[in-house]
C-alpha cells in the first residue's frame, strides 16, 4: 500500500506511472513516434529507452494505423502496449484500427485487447487546427473503447496505471496545458485510480459545475474567485461515466453547468445534460447549461484561439447566471 507522496507535475506523474508499470510488468511496451532515444515530443518517455531497451520502447515510423494495429496484435498476444500519439489530433490517421478493430474485437469474438492510446490533447498555445483538438467525443461513439481524462497529477498517474491494467482499449487524454502547469502530491509506488468514479473536487450546495481535464481547473478558480458555494465534479472517466455521482450532485444543488474544452455538439456536455434531464428533471431549478468551445476548428492566432476556448471570465459569467436563476 503506497503511503509516501511526492510533489510532481502532471507530466511527471504520467511518466512515473508508465515507468513503474513497465518495471512491474515486462509485457508493458511503449510504441510511438520519437519516443525512443529522443524521449518523446513532450519527454514523457525520457530515459525509458535507456532503461527498457529498444524492444520495449519502440520508435514507430510515421504511420498511426501501424502503431494502433500492431498494438492490437501484440495485445491479443499478451503484451500491454501503450501507444503514444504525438498529438491527439493524429489519432485521426489511426482511427480505423482503433474503432473498427480494437474497439469491436471483444464484442465480436471474445478477444480482449488490453492497450492504451495516450493522447496529448487540448489547446491554448497556438497549436492551430491540427495540434489542439480534444477528440474525446469521437471515441465515445465507438462502443468498446474506455475513455479517461485526468485533471490532476494524482489522477494522471492513477488512471494511467488503471488503463494499462485494464483488459480493454483505453483512450487516455492527457491535456498538454496541464503537463507542466499542474503539480500535486502523488503517491509513490503502486497507485491506481479506478475507472468510472468521478471526484468531488470542491464541495458546494448552490451549483454543480461538471467538467474534466483542463475545465476542472477553470471551474475551481472560478468558484474561488466568485466566493460562492459551488460544487465542482471532476468526471475523470468519460466511459464508463459515473452517473451516480452526477445525479447525486444535481439532487443536492439543483443547478448544473457542464464545462469542457472540446466542441459543443454531441459532446460530453450534451451527454451529461441529456442524462440529467432524463434522470433528474424534477430536481432542477434551472436549465442545464454548457460552456464549451463552439463548433469551430481551433484557430491559430492568439486572439482567435482565446475567443473560442472557454476562459475564466466565461465560466464565471455562466456560474453567475445560473446562481441568479
Amino acid at each position, binding site marked *: 500500500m503506497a503511503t509516501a507522496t511526492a510533489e510532481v507535475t502532471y507530466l511527471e506523474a504520467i511518466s512515473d506511472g508508465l515507468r513503474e508499470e513497465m518495471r512491474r510488468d515486462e509485457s508493458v*511496451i511503449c510504441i510511438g513516434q520519437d519516443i525512443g532515444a529522443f524521449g518523446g515530443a513532450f519527454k514523457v518517455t525520457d530515459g525509458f529507452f535507456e532503461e527498457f531497451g529498444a*524492444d*520495449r520502447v519502440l520508435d*514507430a*515510423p510515421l*504511420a498511426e*494505423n*501501424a502503431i*494502433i*494495429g*500492431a*498494438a*492490437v*496484435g*501484440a*495485445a*491479443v*498476444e*499478451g*503484451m500491454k*502496449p501503450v501507444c503514444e500519439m504525438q498529438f491527439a489530433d493524429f489519432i485521426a490517421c489511426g482511427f*480505423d*484500427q482503433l474503432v*473498427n*478493430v480494437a474497439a*469491436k*474485437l*471483444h*464484442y*465480436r*469474438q*471474445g*478477444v*480482449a*485487447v*488490453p492497450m492504451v492510446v495516450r493522447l496529448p490533447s487540448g489547446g491554448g498555445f497556438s497549436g492551430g487546427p491540427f495540434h489542439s483538438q480534444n477528440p474525446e467525443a469521437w471515441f465515445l461513439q465507438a*462502443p*468498446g473503447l*474506455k475513455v479517461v481524462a485526468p485533471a490532476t497529477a494524482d489522477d494522471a498517474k492513477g488512471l494511467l496505471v488503471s488503463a494499462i491494467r485494464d*483488459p*480493454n482499449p483505453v483512450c487516455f487524454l492527457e491535456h498538454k496545458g496541464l503537463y507542466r502547469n499542474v503539480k500535486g502530491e502523488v503517491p509513490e509506488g503502486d497507485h491506481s485510480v479506478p475507472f468510472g468514479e468521478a471526484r468531488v473536487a470542491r464541495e458546494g450546495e448552490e451549483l454543480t459545475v461538471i467538467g474534466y481535464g483542463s475545465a476542472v481547473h477553470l471551474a475551481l478558480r472560478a468558484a474561488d474567485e466568485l466566493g460562492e458555494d459551488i460544487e465542482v465534479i471532476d468526471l475523470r472517466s468519460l466511459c464508463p461515466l459515473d452517473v451516480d455521482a452526477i445525479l447525486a450532485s444535481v439532487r443536492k444543488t439543483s443547478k448544473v453547468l457542464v464545462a469542457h474544452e472540446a466542441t459543443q455538439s454531441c459532446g460530453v456536455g450534451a451527454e451529461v445534460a441529456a442524462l440529467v434531464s432524463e434522470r433528474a428533471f424534477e430536481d432542477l431549478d434551472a436549465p442545464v447549461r454548457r460552456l464549451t468551445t463552439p463548433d469551430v476548428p481551433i484557430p491559430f492566432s492568439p486572439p482567435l484561439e482565446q475567443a473560442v476556448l472557454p476562459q475564466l471570465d466565461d465560466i464565471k459569467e455562466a456560474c453567475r447566471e445560473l446562481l441568479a436563476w
Partner: protein
Amino acid sequence: MNRTDGAVANGSAREADTLGLREAEEPPLTRDDRASLFRLMVMMRASEERGITLYRQGKVPGSFYDGRGQEAISVGSAFVLGPRDRMCILHRDLGAHLVRGVTPDRYLANYMGRAGGVTAGKDGNMHFGDRELGCVGMVSMLPDMALVATGMAMAFKIRREPRVAMTYFGEGSTANGQWHEAMNFAGIHGLPVVFVLENNQFAYSTPNELEFAVDPVERAAGYGFPGVSVDGNDVEAVFEASRVAAERARTGDGPTLIECETMRMHGHGAHDDMSYVPEGMFERWTERDPIDRYARRLVDELGFSADEVEGIRSEVAEYVERGALEALESPMPDPGEATRGVFADEWRPLGDGRAPWSHWSELPERAEAA
C-alpha cells in the same frame, strides 16, 4: 500490364529463386498429408456450396461470400502452421479455418446468425476467427488484419518465440495505405509474418490494371523482404512457398510476401452477377480448377486410386451435410445477448490451432517447444 486474362506473372520463376523454391525437392508431404490437402479443399467447396443453398433458401441474412476457385490458397498455406502459430483469415479463405479446426456446422451457423456460429450471431458471414484455435477474425476494412498479424509477430519477436503469424489479403487491398504501413513495419523490424496475397483478378468489379501500376509482389523488395509469385491453383505450390516462408519467419529471417495467382470464380457476393468478367475467362480458369487438378494429379502421379479420391469426396459430402443439419438445429441467439460483451473482464490467451501437417504430429516435442 494487363493480367486479367489470368496469366501467371512472368517473373515468378525469378522471384521463386529468392525463396530457394527451385532447389527444393519434392514438398515434404506424406500420402496422408496429400489426402488431407485434398479433403480440406473439397470440404471448403462443399461447405460453401451448402451455404449458398441455405442462402437461396432465405436462411442467410445479408449476402453470401465464398472463395470458389481459391481453395488451394487457404488450405495450402494454413497447412504449414504449427499449433501455436496465429492467423488472421480473410473471407475467401474458409479452407484456413477448416485446417485450424473450425467445423462446417459452426461456419454455416455463423452465416445463418445462429447461436452455434463462431461469433454466436455477433458478426456474420466470414467475419469470424475462432479464438480457441489461434485466430483473430477479420473486419470489413481491408487489409486491416495485415497490421494485426504484424503486431502478433511483433510480440513473438519481442519474446523470442519461434512462432509465425500468417494473414491474407486480396490484390485489391494492396492499394490501401494500411497495406504499405504493414509491409513497411514488418520490414523494418524483420517480423515473423507471412503475408499471403490472393490475386483473384478483381477487387469486386475492378480489374488488376485499375488497381495498381506495378505487380504488388514486386513491391516486397522495396520493403526489404522477398516476394514470390506462385500458382494459386496448385495446392502443393502454395504449400511449398508457405512452408519456406514460415520457416524463414520462425528462424528469424523476417517476413515474406507470397502472391497466389488465382481467379474468383463467383461474384464478390451472391448478389454480384459478374457481368464485368471478360468472355472466355471463366472457361480458361475452370480448366485450372484447383480441386479437379489435384484430383487428377493424385491419381496420375501420386499413387492414389480413383476410388480413393471419389471416396474422399463422398465422405466429405456426407460430413458437410451432417454439419448443415446441425447448423439448422442451432437456435437463434437470445436477444439479451445483443448488449453483452462490449467490454472484457479479463485478458485470456488465444487457444492453439489444429496443425494437421505430419511434420507437427510426427514431432510433438517440436510443437511443444514452439
